[in-house]
């Protein structure tokens, strides 16, 4: 399987009836789309459902995909629309689930308690286990529209222009949301004392 084949080329092959091209797309993007859904919904169960729905939609709507369109723009638009619809339905049902923490350890427990500061040998994984809830909390603290932009850019790797297409706002708005997101994250991380060690890592 060629791994460097473009998404659009793979999609065209799938349109022509080649199921292995779909498989390549799935392997490439299933994880990132799932992460986008987990981070935006903050609920793994819902993210899993939405992930399936998203890809089934890719299958059923494939004949209507136009070769001009970037595949990732299309893919994340589908995922986002499904997610937004689902959230709306949940809101209509009066579901409290939106407020329920996706990861109780990360979101609702007092953050500092989750950190075992007396860990004798903070190896790489233990350190990251300590860090993880704090990073999740920082991300979760962002307003939805900022979090969405940040996740799409940072984790899904979509360029700003594509994010604009996916979210339906001008590119400048996307960038300003991104700035707010980065500022918000930095403040939050600072509050939790993460910045110093992160800066160390980032230092050349």
């Amino acid at each position, binding site marked *: 399987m060629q791994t460097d084949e473009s998404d659009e080329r793979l999609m065209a092959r*799938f*349109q*022509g*009836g*080649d*199921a*292995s091209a*779909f*498989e390549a797309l*799935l392997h490439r993007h*299933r*994880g*990132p789309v*799932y*992460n986008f859904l*987990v*981070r935006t919904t903050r609920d*793994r169960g819902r*993210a*899993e459902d939405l*992930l*399936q729905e998203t*890809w*089934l939609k890719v*299958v*059923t709507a*494939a*004949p209507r995909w136009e070769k001009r369109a970037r595949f990732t723009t299309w893919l994340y638009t589908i995922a986002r629309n499904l997610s937004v619809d689902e959230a709306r339905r949940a809101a209509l049902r009066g579901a409290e689930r939106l407020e329920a923490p996706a990861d109780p350890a990360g979101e609702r427990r007092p953050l500092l308690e989750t950190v075992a500061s007396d860990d004798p040998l903070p190896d790489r994984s233990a350190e*990251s286990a300590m*860090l*993880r809830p704090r*990073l*999740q909390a*920082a*991300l979760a603290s962002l307003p939805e529209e900022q979090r969405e932009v*940040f996740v799409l*850019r*940072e*984790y899904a790797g979509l*360029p*700003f222009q594509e994010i604009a297409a996916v979210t339906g706002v001008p590119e400048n708005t996307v*960038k300003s949301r*991104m*700035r707010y997101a*980065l500022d918000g*994250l*930095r403040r939050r*991380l600072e509050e939790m004392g*993460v*910045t110093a*060690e*992160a*800066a160390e*890592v*980032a230092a050349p």
Partner: protein
Amino acid sequence: MNHQDAREKLLDLAYGELSRREAAEVEAHLAGCPECRAERDRIAATRAAMRRLEPEVPPAAGERILLAAARQAADRQRERSGVLVPRWVWRVSFTTVLVAVVGAVTLQIVGMRERTVREELRGAPERAAPTAEAPAAQAPALPGPVPARPEEAKLAKSAERPAAPARKEAPPAAAPEAPQAMAKRDGEKARPAPAAAPAVAEQAPPAERSLAQARAKVADQAVGAAPPAPAAAGAAPSADVTAGESPARPAAKGEAKLGSAESAAPGTGSPAGPVAKEPRLTARDWKGSPEIEAVRGIVRDVDRRVRAGKLQMSARPFQACGPLEDAERRIYAGSGGRAAKFVRQAGGAEAALTFEEYYDDAGRLRYVFIHGGAVNGALLEHRIWLDPEGNRLWEEQKLRRGSYPFPAAWPERDLWLAAPGAEVLGCGNGAGIR
């Protein structure tokens, strides 16, 4: 580049979205602007921290469903574009098309036939009575796959048995009626499925004859199953192509059935064909019967060994062999390397099915559990119990969430009567078709 412009572009720089020239301009500004450098470092630090959030890993469970859905869609796509005709469309879709068409046609005939039988009853009760009163459970021959409810599916061994002339002291009235019925069939075949129709025309008569009464009872239900016929007719031409090229299938019972059905067609009056055995089990007693219990014991035992990890599992997804064939095969091998349990995923444009086949210690197929769903949302559970000689003891079908014309008597060609071994896990062994 002035300060404001550079500042605006720090984000693009951080994410590598600037052209080389723009990037160089911003870098040039940065060299002389501590404020912008500080901002750049803040962005970098925040990103670095957030990059340490490990990615969430999606559960693997959903992936296979997606791949199966994609395979189906890809098949449909190829069909539509006429690029090539998948062989397995014949296996599942064609079977269902055939079934649907047979169902639709026989229904019409059954309608007419029932009237005839009634008239016949009035006219010559002493002659027609045996047929007319034959209990549904004894109706001996289902010449082909027929859409029906569980009650009708329970005709033991029905699929393999040739049309049974035993019951054919039936109405001679069939002869006068025949031309009319033929005309009806012709009309029917011209419309939905040119390829399937000839077979249908040959299949219908015995059905109409021996099952007239049984079918009439379920006419309403079967009507529900009929509609997919025209929709699925698009797949029918493939049958024409592929049926001819289908490679040596060991037990061509399907053809045998057709042959005998043909010879027993009305008008020929030929009473050829062996006398059908009476089904040993009935709707009332099959469940607790020793034969069925013996099969259940085998299944339980195999499953227990599977759970205990006592059977050697080997599996193979068949993407490499092409999407037209079985999607996956899994063997749980007992001693000697032959399967105690054999699981296959198969599918066509309209349905995705899993076949679970269980073998006794002598490697004989004893139980088949077929489950899956059709594109219209109908869910299937189909079970076949077999005796040591491979005869069907009992067969039942359950449909949920809607109806779909799965064959009530499952075609023999889908069953592996002898326990397969590792050889079926390789490519080029006729994966997906037998």
